[in-house]
């Protein structure tokens, strides 16, 4: 008990984080806002598919950084948590709590002031988007928490020179890499910082070399995993980073003409305003610069701030390519948003910079007047944060997220979902690509083993060849729609205008850009009989939900 009592501040911070995140989760659940982004649904489905799929297992994790998916597996196995999206909250809340405690301890270690450590925590916890992403199945909070932990251990290694912290820091670099793509940049940056520190300490070459191995081995594990996975399952070791045939095709066909980095970075700055409020962003930048200039233990602070801003730098660097384009309404012809959340990745920098600057100023001058001014500024910052949160949550109800290009209105159910919910309960397989159709996987409440999609490799390939032998339902992007122009749907490409396909299938429900086709079973059976094919040989018809065996697959070919 005495040991626990020594950590009462941390316990208070943890409770604050838990309560705020829980309240937000409840609010989002009530308002049907937990799964409005395509990515949220995709993450949920990735996790669920590892256990509920025609081909369950590691192959379903996908080439995205897999940590969230792996962590979410247990929660996603529960139907309620999966379908409501609360699996994300159940998975992320402990990570969020730990991350917040790390932030507190980090600022406390930097400033030696509990008050301003708490200020950093409040800035963080009052941000509506931080809370939003702590309650929904997204990776942002995961990376933020990891970067706080990494900063803390790296700082402690700097200060106390304990090998343990360097090893943990190495491990966390890997964890960051499998948390979000932005985490990948931490490997060279933290490695470089560590090298500089060792050189400044005038350590011998052999010791630096040994420490490089000790830090480097755990640190590269994340990247190694991503590369190995990509190599095995995508066919290219850098497939995860968008190097490969598919990405090349997308870049060649979809990248907007005239796309250049400076306007993208401008969009990123504006996205930061949306995510953290304009005053806080300016205040963060100002405090960061001033603190770096006046702080006593500069190198320690530099290191922490560099680590915390690395994810933003990674986003900015990625913007030199097409895929991480951040869109804000000011610069969008359609008045919409896209990937604005990327700008949230440097909220740690902002919170730490403001808190350390205020703490530094507070402790530098003992005048009551000056300290009063500092306290007033602190209160002002926090008030701005409160107002900002109120606007985002209550007034706008996360309009920025709802207006995202990949967002969909979940309040009204689609026709396809309605139809499948009531008619696809007989166990027939559904052929569909996952790209752009994830919502049907989630909202139809059907077992994911019913779907034949690109992640089922051999099943998908064979079903795509002659859908009528394998799939009772086909979900297809409508030819000529915007989605079909933007995203490649092989089902549409192959069958939308095929006579054979249209002979066996007919449209039974439609959404804005998608159609649902149902199979004419009688016709297939009579044709099969005519061709001398036994009904049992047709994979779709033995409705016993057995996974096709290798022999069956071979036979069906």
């Amino acid at each position, binding site marked *: 008990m005495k040991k626990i009592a020594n950590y009462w501040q941390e316990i208070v911070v943890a409770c604050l984080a838990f309560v705020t995140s829980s309240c937000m989760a409840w609010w989002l659940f009530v308002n049907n806002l937990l799964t409005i982004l395509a990515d949220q649904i995709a993450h949920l489905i990735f996790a669920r598919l590892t256990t509920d799929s025609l081909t369950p297992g590691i192959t379903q994790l996908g080439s995205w950084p897999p940590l969230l998916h792996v962590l979410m597996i247990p929660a996603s196995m529960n139907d309620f948590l999966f379908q409501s999206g609360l699996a994300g909250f159940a998975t992320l809340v402990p990570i969020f709590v730990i991350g917040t405690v790390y932030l507190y301890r980090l600022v406390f270690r930097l400033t030696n002031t509990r008050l301003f450590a708490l200020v950093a925590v409040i800035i963080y916890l009052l941000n509506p988007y931080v809370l939003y992403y702590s309650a929904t199945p997204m990776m942002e909070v995961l990376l933020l928490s990891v970067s706080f932990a990494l900063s803390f251990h790296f700082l402690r290694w700097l200060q106390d020179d304990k090998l343990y912290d360097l090893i943990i820091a190495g491990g966390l670099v890997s964890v960051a890499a499998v948390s979000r793509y932005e985490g990948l940049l931490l490997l060279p940056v933290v490695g470089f910082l560590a090298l500089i520190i060792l050189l400044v300490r005038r350590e011998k070459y052999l010791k630096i070399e040994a420490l490089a*191995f*000790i830090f480097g*081995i755990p640190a590269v594990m994340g990247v190694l995993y991503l590369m190995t996975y990509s190599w095995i399952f995508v066919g290219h070791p850098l497939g995860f980073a968008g190097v490969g045939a598919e990405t090349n095709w997308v870049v060649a066909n979809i990248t907007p003409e005239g796309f250049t980095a400076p306007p993208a970075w401008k969009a990123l700055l504006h996205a930061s305003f949306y995510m953290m409020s304009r005053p806080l962003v300016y205040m963060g930048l100002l405090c960061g610069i001033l603190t770096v200039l006046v702080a006593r233990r500069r190198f320690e602070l530099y290191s922490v701030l560099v680590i915390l801003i690395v994810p933003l730098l990674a986003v900015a660097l990625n913007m030199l390519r097409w895929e991480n384009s951040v869109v804000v309404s000011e610069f969008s012809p359609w008045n919409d948003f896209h990937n604005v959340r990327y700008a949230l990745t440097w909220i740690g920098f902002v919170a730490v910079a403001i808190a350390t600057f205020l703490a530094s100023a507070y402790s530098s001058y003992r005048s009551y007047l000056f300290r009063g001014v500092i306290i007033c500024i602190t209160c002002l910052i926090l008030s701005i944060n409160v107002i900002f949160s109120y606007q985002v949550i209550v007034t706008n109800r996360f309009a920025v997220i709802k207006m995202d290009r990949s967002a969909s209105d979940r309040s009204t159910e689609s026709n396809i979902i309605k139809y499948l919910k009531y008619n696809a309960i007989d166990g027939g397989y559904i052929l569909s690509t996952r790209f752009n159709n994830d919502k049907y996987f989630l909202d139809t409440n059907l077992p994911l083993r019913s779907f034949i999609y690109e992640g089922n490799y051999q099943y998908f390939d064979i079903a795509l060849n002659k859908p009528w032998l394998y799939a009772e339902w086909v979900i297809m992007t409508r030819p000529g729609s915007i989605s079909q122009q933007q995203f490649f749907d092989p089902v549409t490409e192959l069958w939308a205008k095929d006579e054979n396909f249209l002979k066996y299938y007919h449209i039974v429900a439609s959404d804005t850009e998608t159609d649902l086709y149902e199979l004419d079973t009688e016709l297939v059976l009579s044709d099969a009989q005519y061709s001398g094919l036994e009904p049992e040989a047709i994979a779709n018809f033995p409705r016993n939900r057995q996974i096709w065996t290798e022999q069956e697959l071979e036979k069906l070919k």
Partner: protein
Amino acid sequence: MKNLSVIIPIYNEIDNLGQLINRLVDVLESFCNRYELIFIDDHSSDGSFGFLQSASIRNSNIRIYLKEGKKGKAYSLLEGIERALFDVIGMIDGDLQYPPEAIKEMFSKIYNQEAEIVIANRTYRQTTKSRTFLSRVFKSIFGHFVFGINHDIQSGLKVFSKKVFYNLQLSPTKWGFDYEFVYKAVRMKWRVSSVDIDFPERKFGESKVRPFQTALELFSGALVLRTRYLARSFFKFIDYPHHSERSPYNFSNEHDFLFLPEIHSAKRHIYAESVSFFLLTLTVAIGFFYVVSNLTGIPAFVILSALIAAFYLLFMLFKVFIVYLAIRYNPEIKISDEEALAIPEGELPIYTILIPLYREEGVINQISAAMGSINYPTDKLDITITLEEYDHPTINAISEAGLPSHFKTLILPDVKPKTKPKALNVAFLQVSGEFLVIYDAEIIPEPLQLRRAFLAFKKNQDIACLQTKLDHYNPKQSLVTRLFNSEFSFHYDYFMPGLQKLGVPLPLSGHSTHFRTEMISQIGAWDPYNVTEDCDMGIRLARIGQKTGILDSTSQEEATADFKSWVLQRTRWMKGFIQTSIVHMRHPFRFTKEIGGLKNLLGFLLIVPGSVLINVINFIYWIVFLVWIFFQPAFIQELFPRPILYISVFSFVLGNFIFTYLNLLATYKRGRYDLVKYNLLSFIYWIMLAVATTRAVIEIFIKPHHWEKTVHGTHLANGRTFAFRKFFRMKQ
């Protein structure tokens, strides 16, 4: 000397006592140099005790005791045996139905070493018909048929050597002493003989035997005993103590210097105990695979694959947990330089150092220098160097070196086995130190090590043995030495301290291990047939409940520098691990009990046989892995269905990573920064381990006791090397 203790259990025998004493005294005085009559009175109510008291005043050879334990003849006899002073014991009932005069002839059979137990065979009976009938039935059915003993096993007159009782472990019923004693003694291979006697009717007093009640007790007791032993005959591994344990350690054995009972030695590997345990395990395993395979429909080989995957995972987690304990608690015993140097010289005890040498002529000067550097008064050092009489180069080198006067040399008798533990056993008979340490020829101990060890023993009275840490002074000699050094760093800095914290038995090292000398006596010294006597020693210490501590003091030794020497040395180590496993698992239940329960058993299984098994499986799996990489046969895919594949891949990837990394950390911790990077080649070392272990498994069948001599002094040698050595050696 003809000395005899006669035990007479009595209960209300006042009418017989006078005549009994007179007849006994007459007969004993006729042939004994010294004798004693021990009467155990079971709280008689007829004044027997008072009568005996007055008799004892008249005859000083009469000793009387009022019973202390449970009521019944059997317990009286046990109390009497405990109190007997002489090496030969007689027992006779107090009812005068057995003629005391027969004792003389019975004693002479013991004295002439014809047998260790002599039973009076009742040939002519004058008792009641019912008792005669029951006795005959008991003798014929139980004596002959059930127990297979052609003597009157229920006879109340016996003479036997006291040594028979060592380790006999009797737990008789009220009347069940005789048959249990004789039967168990026979099972321990003691010789039984008999003398025919008349068995007349009781003249005075009442018989305490209620024929049917007593018979029932005897029959049931005998049946239970026999049934129990019948099961033990089938499952020998539950039958202990073994007959080789019927005597205490034989420190006078100069035949092969094995002081231990053979059942605790690797002298012979195949015992009924091991075979029965192996067969039972095999049967259970086959049954398990059959049942599980039938119930689940999973092929047996897939189940085996799953079990191996689970074993891998368990082994990995166990090692990680051990390392965690070492890092978290660091249980090493630390004695500072100041403390060690502050011990007054007068307080320091005599310390024995044993240095077994064989073909070590190259390092004699190094030994002299290393021993000379030890900070300990030379007059309190008892340094004994053992030498084989035909090892002339080393003997000559020692003569030429002119070692200081406190060094003693001991030429070993030319008897087999030619092993280091045999040399230690020979030397042990002459040690004079309170503490003892073994140093190999090439060892350079830390100068304050003896002082630290003494203080550590003094501070930790519950510790019987101290394991110091080992390091190499030639780690940069070749790639092999680099990897070997990393292994040692991990073993001594993380693994051993972790094991100590967990409280499981420690597999000791062959040298730089310090003992309380009396503890070596208590465990029967070393097993000369075990080629890793050190590991065996650690386990045997644990079996008698003794603790081993890790002392924070490092001895420097030479790492085997080339692949061949390394494999030879490691083959011996692994062979010794197999021997140790076989020896200690002869009585698995007993072992579990003695070693301190299931936790320690599991620890032992994972550390000793587990290390061997994991290396052999490694060898097989590396081959499977390579075959899969190059040929991808379907049967391998069938061996690893998805969950098993995940566990196996997890263990493979994470296990390789963790152990490579831990080696790396251990090397860093020892400040050998330049070696850190070589740990990335740990997988080569594991393949080498797999090769050596597989070799050991083969060698255990071919030449189980062969001691592969490790060549020392290669770091001192200059000149030509073999081509493969060149391959492994790297620029320093």
